[in-house]
């Protein structure tokens, strides 16, 4: 095991500050070891011995280092029932509040963007079927979108490695998946057909508008990659496609402060989410 450069508390604070200002990612004391390790790994990989040198390298974004560093921090592997507390919030609070505001026959619409290879929108579908009492009496539309068309193709196929199912109980796996050999599983056709997958870039207003309006949007770990100007545009696009009173959920290290003050902060038992104000009518 090669020796990784040790990173001091001050140095850690500097990097966290920079990350926060640049991306909105917020790391608490609890995550210190995790971030320090990623830092040390990047430095070892680049053969940079001094923190000051790496810090300057990171700040100047040589060779796309900021994105590389962010990638190392966001666990890119997606899996079913990731950030379960947000799913709990969805079925315990968000959908109930939204359902009350619906006209008869009006569907509740949920957007997962970016959806990558589909774990998130399928998770939402499964979770609601399992946990939301009103799931049988309400129309629910789930849309999954991504900028990566290869991901979308895979998402429509709905086949996953065992790893992606690690948070699911054997009972759930048996109920919603069929094995396709070699530790791979395919989600049931009914569920595959219940999610619509589309291509979308959240910074593109026309593309976002083409998707209609939503009651709940899950937009995790993508805003952190944008610069300030693009992030503002994306936030406005997302705001525009939320119904008044609709909710948006970000990744757990992301602070909405990056793209506020459009949204209002709402605290529920399981999560803090952001809401488009319910009444927009005032001139």
């Amino acid at each position, binding site marked *: 095991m090669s020796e990784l450069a040790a990173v001091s508390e001050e140095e850690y604070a500097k990097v966290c500050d920079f990350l926060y200002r640049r991306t909105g990612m917020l790391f608490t004391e609890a995550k210190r070891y995790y971030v320090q390790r990623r830092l040390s790994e990047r430095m070892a990989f680049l053969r940079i011995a001094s923190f000051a040198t790496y810090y*300057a390298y990171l700040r100047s974004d040589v060779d796309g280092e900021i994105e590389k560093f962010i990638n190392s921090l966001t666990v890119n592997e997606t899996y079913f029932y990731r950030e379960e507390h947000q799913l709990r919030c969805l079925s315990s609070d968000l959908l109930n509040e939204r359902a009350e505001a619906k006209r008869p026959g009006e569907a509740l619409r949920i957007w997962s963007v970016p959806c990558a290879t589909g774990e998130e929108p399928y998770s939402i579908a499964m979770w609601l079927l399992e946990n939301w009492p009103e*799931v049988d009496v309400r129309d*629910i*539309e789930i849309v999954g979108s991504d900028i990566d068309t290869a991901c979308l193709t895979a998402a429509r196929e709905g086949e996953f490695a065992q790893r992606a199912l690690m948070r699911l109980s054997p009972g759930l796996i048996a109920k919603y998946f069929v094995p396709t050999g070699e530790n791979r599983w395919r989600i049931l056709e009914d569920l595959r057909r219940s999610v619509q997958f589309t291509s979308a870039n959240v910074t593109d207003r026309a593309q976002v508008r083409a998707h209609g309006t939503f009651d709940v949007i899950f937009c995790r770990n993508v805003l952190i990659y944008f610069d*300030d100007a693009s992030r503002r545009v994306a936030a*406005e696009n997302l705001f525009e496609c939320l119904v008044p009173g609709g909710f948006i959920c970000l990744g757990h290290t992301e602070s909405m402060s990056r793209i506020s003050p459009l949204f209002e902060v709402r605290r529920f038992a399981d999560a803090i989410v952001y809401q488009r104000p319910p009444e927009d009518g005032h001139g």
Partner: protein
Amino acid sequence: MPLIRRPSPPVEAAAPSRSLTEGTADQRWAAVRAAAERPDAVPSLAAALAQESDPRVREAIFTGLARAATAESAEAVAAYVRSDDAGLRRAAIDALRAMPMASRPHLPGMLADPDPDVRLLSCELLRDLPQADSNPLLIGLLERESSKNVAAAAVEVLAEIGRPEALPVLNRVAQRFGDDPFLAFSIKLAVDRIGRS
């Protein structure tokens, strides 16, 4: 299964009004957002900003100006750093921060503005510059700065991006404002951090 899939109806396109200053806040917001996508938007956005009081519409105008990132849009935004309204000041600085290249020519002037709050807020914008550019500007400001709060803001930024060339001026500021406990505290910390980098 109650989960249904069907083609999404696009967002209602209400007859797009070209006017950025008429109608409800929602209508003005939509008009501003549409305008911001056109290349010639800056003059009309700047004009609309002067009349707009709704925070969300203002925010969208600032976003449009930041996206444009031209000399004109930066000029239009920079004027609002002098506002009496804290929210407007904040919005202007955030917009300038979102267009670093376009803002840069304005920085020396803002750092020398007679209003101490303008100087103070402008220090923030130096954080993202290459150190070779930010350090001389901050050193220049500190050499002549009379306001303790502005000096403190500059020291705060230097604590993060300062280089050894800034150490002499920091020591001079410590002597000039020796009686201020916060400045003494900040300078000590900044000198410490720069020294160890």
